[in-house]
């Protein structure tokens, strides 16, 4: 509770939380609050490339203009929020679960198993992540599930290292020895005494990883390897806008601003969580 209060007292972090909550609301409510349908194309030759703040020939007002198929950009941006937020949070959840599993197992097991697991972690870290992502996504059929899994499975390494270091440090603490001396079984020792205290740096790393995951998803979509069109995602909207950069720059500009807002909010939130959890800066 004190952590939450410390987090919200930090003006920057509070702002970031507000932005993230707003994005989550837009993502959840997009079908109901968006002005129109993200797929509807009217008389395409007359409604395409409408600049922001104009009404189409059919009288429909487009606050942020239309794209090369005459689809309402604000609507598509709102629906794109769903994909970015889903991938951002779910893939990080996958990374956290995997990273904790590997890191904690290594720390508890020790010996050869620990060294093998950490060598695997280092090997994965040495792999250029994007190359791995490209290979995985391109070789299988692109879908939301695949994108979440692939970003999650290529992002657990730093969390595994953090979790292992933290658990190892805690296992050497006198209070853990005391718990062990009272006859606590290993499971209780782990879940009750070690893990809750090891989670702090993991939470910080996870918060900072959300922004990275959002960027990666949009990047894959930009290369045409993300969630397949016509589903609107910020990345494939930018890719579509790139072809009309001269005549309709807003199509490529606006989704990028959305990405920057989401990523900056996640990063500021991560920094805020770190400061709030770190008693020395409070």
């Amino acid at each position: 509770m004190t952590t939450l209060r410390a987090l919200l007292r930090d003006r920057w972090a509070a702002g970031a939380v507000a932005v993230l909550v707003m994005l989550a609301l837009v993502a959840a409510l997009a079908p109901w609050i968006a002005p129109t349908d993200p797929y509807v194309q009217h008389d395409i030759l007359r409604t395409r490339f409408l600049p922001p703040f104009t009404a189409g020939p059919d009288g429909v007002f487009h606050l942020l203009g239309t794209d090369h198929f005459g689809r309402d950009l604000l609507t598509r941006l709102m629906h794109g929020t769903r994909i970015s937020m889903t991938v951002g949070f779910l893939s990080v959840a996958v990374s956290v679960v995997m990273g904790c599993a590997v890191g904690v197992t290594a720390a508890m097991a020790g010996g050869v198993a620990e060294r093998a697991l950490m060598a695997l972690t280092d090997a994965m870290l040495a792999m250029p992540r994007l190359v791995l992502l490209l290979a995985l996504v391109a070789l299988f059929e692109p879908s939301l599930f695949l994108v979440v899994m692939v970003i999650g499975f290529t992002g657990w390494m730093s969390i595994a290292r953090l979790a292992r270091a933290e658990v190892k440090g805690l296992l050497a603490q006198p209070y853990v020895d005391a718990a062990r001396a009272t006859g606590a079984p290993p499971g209780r020792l782990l879940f009750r005494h070690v893990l809750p205290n090891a989670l702090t740096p993991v939470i910080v790393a996870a918060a900072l990883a959300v922004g990275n995951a959002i960027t990666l998803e949009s990047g894959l979509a930009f290369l045409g390897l993300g969630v397949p069109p016509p589903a609107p995602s910020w990345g494939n909207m930018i890719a579509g806008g790139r072809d009309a950069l001269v005549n309709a720059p807003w199509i490529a500009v606006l989704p990028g601003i959305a990405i920057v807002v989401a990523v900056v909010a996640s990063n500021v939130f991560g920094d805020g969580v770190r400061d709030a959890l770190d008693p020395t800066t409070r």
Partner: protein
Amino acid sequence: MFRRVLTRATFGVALVFAVVTATFILINLAPGDPVRLWVAPGAGDAELAVARRALGLDRALPIRYAAWLANFARGDWGVSLAQQRPVARIILDALPHTILLSGASLVLTYLGGTLVGAFQAARRRTTWDTTVTVTSLIVYGMPAYWLAVMLVLTFTYAAARYGWPGWLQFPALGVASLDADFLSPWGRAVDRLRHLALPMVTLAAIGVAGTARFVRGAVLEVRGLEYVRAARARGLAHAVIEGRYILRNALLPIITLLGLSLPALFSGTVFVEFIFSWPGMGREIVSAVASRDYPVVMATTAIFATLVVTGNLLADLLYAVADPRLRREER
């Protein structure tokens, strides 16, 4: 010192080996048939089988792996399925472009990042500091490909449309102009640099933003340490304290950051090369993956992994050079 390097190098070789093996397995398990690249669109099963046998793709996976590894170690990297050119030739053509681009942006990233970070730390809690902090937060949050598109929009299209001065207009495609061969040697060099400008700035801007954040924090942390106060009490010159006492020690962790940032830098070049039609490794890898060009994917992955591992090893060595404590321990 020597033993340390040897251990790390051995581990590095093992790592590259592991990465290559994993890629090989992954690629071959994935759905899709590379043989189709070799035959006419309407080919039947008989033609496919012949082509498969000719390409050696009908053999069992472990045998193919052993054969590939033996050839790869001997320097025979096979022939590209999509381009029908020797893979080694493709890599040799592409690698210098990627090294030029990533090397130039790496230098710019660390020079710029150190300067900006140190400046912020010196002007701590002023309007300057806040402005730069907010700017770097925003730039750091930009996807490399979007920043690239925005730079093209500004310095290529807008610059041309609104008639900006020539030195503010930059080309958006390739490494040289079509008429580069007719330019004087000096003109050709300028032409190359102008083509390098936008891709390099894209990568460096994001790099500078990240590094500056780190340098600012590191400098402020070191400045609060006891020995700095002791140096101040002894009346040392301001420049000596700032430079030799604070900045030098604050920069130590940056060297590790350098090693760790290499994979991210190569990921960045993939997008940037794609957008600017820069004929480097990143563009090769995107087109190879898209066309299931297995030999090229394998070779480029191996090269990328080697570059990353070598970079980490170099960072490790640099660290030992920069930190006398590490050298002494080994003696």
